[in-house]
């Protein structure tokens, strides 16, 4: 299972992994919060970079993923999730390939978080297991 990140195929692979994974279901059984990845193209990080960002939306609820979709850069109708995680493509790739610890990325702002950081820190095992599932979905 190796789909390009970010893409609709990757999102579908991840949703399948999340909904089939018993460990994730157990660890994330109390998690309530949808999230949006904002994947900026690597480069200067200026305004035009943000406008060209692509997005991945995942509705995570009590150990399952109720829905997920890829939102390409040209689409501007974005959901308003509980958590928005923003980073360059390279940073996301490092996290998904296991080269960058997600919590370290958050605490160094390489992965920017909009949403309740306290909730995330109270649920570190959920975050780590979610990233494990992302890795199972594959990165191309």
């Amino acid at each position, binding site marked *: 299972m190796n789909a390009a990140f970010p893409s609709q195929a990757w999102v579908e692979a991840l949703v399948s992994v999340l909904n089939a994974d018993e460990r994730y279901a157990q660890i994330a059984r109390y998690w309530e919060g949808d999230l949006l990845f904002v994947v900026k193209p690597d480069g200067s990080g200026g305004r035009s970079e943000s406008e060209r960002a692509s997005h991945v939306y995942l509705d995570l609820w009590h150990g399952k993923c109720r829905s997920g979709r890829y939102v390409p850069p040209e689409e501007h109708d974005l959901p308003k999730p509980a958590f928005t995680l923003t980073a360059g493509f390279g940073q996301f790739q490092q996290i998904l390939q296991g080269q960058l610890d997600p919590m370290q990325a*958050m*605490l*160094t*702002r390489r992965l*920017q*978080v*909009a949403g*309740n*950081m*306290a*909730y995330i*820190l*109270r*649920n*570190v*095992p959920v975050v780590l297991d979610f990233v494990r599932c992302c890795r199972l979905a594959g990165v191309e």
Partner: protein
Amino acid sequence: MTRYLLTHQVKRIYPSQDDLVNDWKGLRRRGTTETRWQRSLYSAATKRLYCEWEAPSPEAIRACFLPEELEMAPIERVEEVVFLDPAWLDESGSAEAR
């Protein structure tokens, strides 16, 4: 320099990433050449934060904290500790095994 392990009970966490990171950066800056926050481990299950410091005394460490930080994550315990690296066992153990 003496090595200390601090155990904090985390009562409250900043909800904003910026506030959290800025606060931790401030704590890091308030350290001196003699009093340094080295690394931390966090248990979400017990809400305990374990921090390793190098300092001349526990008082020197406490002096780095703002009152609000001690209110959010009070220090439960300060212990003088030594570092034990299990990698040493691999080096000495390999000779014994032969």
